[in-house]
């Protein structure tokens, strides 16, 4: 059966793409302005990069979940192109091609539209906006502290009142597993279970491993390792004698730095966090607010990504979703 349509066909934007009309556009630009001011106050400079790149350059380490979601098309030269699904990889390409290592650390920010096919194709947006920063070539601990502090400053300046930032380490689990006698396939299963957020599957895999009872209990406790400063002590106990001990020590330094910057009360230390991108190597973080069921933004450290483009430098950054931020602000986050 046909659905009734007006007799004259209304022109329509493609599915999942929306127009922003003057009133909302003015609000959007005002919000962008507040974020830009927060970034510029810490001497980050704006980068405007192309909307599409060679697919191969965007697919680098982006993680399988994002690779499959890219909007791809063929250039007239037969090379595969893709609209950028996020900005970090694009800015890594810009850095490698255009910037001089002598000028490090590079402090860059962007406000840009990004594009993803939604896997379920239920009419979710295929284009959305992100504001974020990348700090390339800074020190690890100092860089982590600066980036997380700026993340919190940006959300605060945007007008968000009631929010928390979950802070963890992607390398904590691998550090713990490194000292246990666990097959690579089992490690993959554990990671897969955490990535798909199934604690049921995680527990099933852990209980199936041949482990000492103590090591097994440690692994079972890991995803729920979250809270205030006390988490660092519990994590240190779990990590004692493993490669993860250094990870916890570094996290402790970062947390101390955030306390010094006066933002520790925003932080939930959480070693169960897993983010969607494969390029993260150390610290990872994300922001939550009660009025929104999804994270508003997040980021982390990605020390190996630039090397994929032949540029050796540690780096960290974050992105905030502007549509999500607007929704959270509309739901009562405004000061």
């Amino acid at each position, binding site marked *: 059966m046909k659905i009734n349509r007006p007799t004259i066909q209304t022109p329509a934007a493609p599915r999942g793409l929306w127009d922003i009309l003057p009133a909302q556009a003015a609000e959007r630009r005002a919000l962008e302005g507040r974020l830009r001011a927060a970034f510029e106050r810490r001497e980050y400079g704006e980068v405007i990069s192309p909307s599409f790149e060679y697919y191969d350059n965007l697919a680098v380490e982006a993680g399988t979940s994002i690779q499959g979601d890219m909007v791809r098309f063929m250039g007239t030269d037969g090379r595969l192109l893709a609209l950028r699904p996020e900005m970090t990889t694009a800015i890594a390409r810009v850095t490698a091609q255009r910037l001089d290592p002598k000028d490090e650390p590079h402090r860059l920010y962007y406000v840009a539209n990004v594009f993803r096919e939604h896997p*379920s194709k239920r009419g979710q947006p295929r284009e959305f906006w992100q504001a974020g920063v990348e700090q390339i070539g800074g020190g690890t601990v100092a860089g982590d502290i600066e980036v997380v502090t700026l993340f919190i400053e940006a959300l605060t300046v945007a007008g968000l009142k009631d929010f928390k930032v979950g802070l963890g380490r992607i390398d904590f689990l691998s550090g713990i597993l490194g000292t246990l006698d666990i097959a690579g396939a089992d490690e993959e299963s554990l990671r897969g279970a955490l990535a798909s*957020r199934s*604690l*049921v599957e995680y527990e099933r895999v852990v209980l199936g491993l041949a482990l000492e009872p103590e090591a097994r209990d440690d692994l079972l406790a890991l995803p729920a390792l979250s809270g205030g400063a006390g988490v660092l002590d519990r994590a240190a106990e779990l990590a004692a004698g493993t490669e993860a001990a250094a990870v916890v020590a570094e996290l402790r330094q970062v947390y101390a730095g955030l306390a010094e910057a006066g933002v520790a009360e925003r932080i939930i230390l959480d070693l169960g966090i897993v983010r969607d991108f494969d390029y993260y190597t150390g610290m990872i973080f994300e922001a939550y607010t009660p009025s*929104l069921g999804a994270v508003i933004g997040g980021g982390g450290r990605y020390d190996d990504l630039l090397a994929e483009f032949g540029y050796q430098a540690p780096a960290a950054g974050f992105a905030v979703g502007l549509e999500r931020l607007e929704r959270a602000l509309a739901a009562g986050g405004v000061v």
Partner: protein
Amino acid sequence: MDKLRIAVAKGSLWEPVIERLEAAGFDIEPLRNPGRRLQLETAEVEYVISRAVDVPTFVEWGAVDIGFVGSDILMEEDYDVFELLDLAIGQCRFVLAGRAEAAGAAPAPGRLQRVATKYPKVAADYLERCGRQAEIIKLYGSMELAPLVGLADEIIDLSSTGRTLADNGLVVIDEIVEVSCRLIANYVSYKMKSSAINELVNKVKNAC
């Protein structure tokens, strides 16, 4: 802190979930006689009554904090939710079933098999894993009918006792995966209300 909002679905999991909540010490009186109301509040929590298939959607978008849902529904679509607990209730399994007289016989060479199911993704994943090629036909109920009237050669469906299959002259050809009730949580709720949610998880876990 706001009360936890919990989605419970009418259907086969309704009774066992309510019993488990009661055993865990929750006030379930309003759920005993909800009438037409879809939102019910107690001193501790707020219950939302939704269709089973919608529970993960309410949870994913954060309209409720946690929900009780069969793992069959979680397998059929990718939901970004935390799966916290297997309650080991409402157990059944996905099976591949076909007519008793055709079972075990090699399919006619070259003919494309047809499989009817309410769960096309589960079916497609299973068939691909087996390296089988088949056409999948989506139905919304009475799967058993499909092989009887020649709509499909086989069906992929949930079965607990196998009685409905047997009554219709069908036999289980393969057992695909066990299914049971899961407790799921919204991502942000789990992060921001972790102590309240973990407390509930422990109560529900220890109540069996």
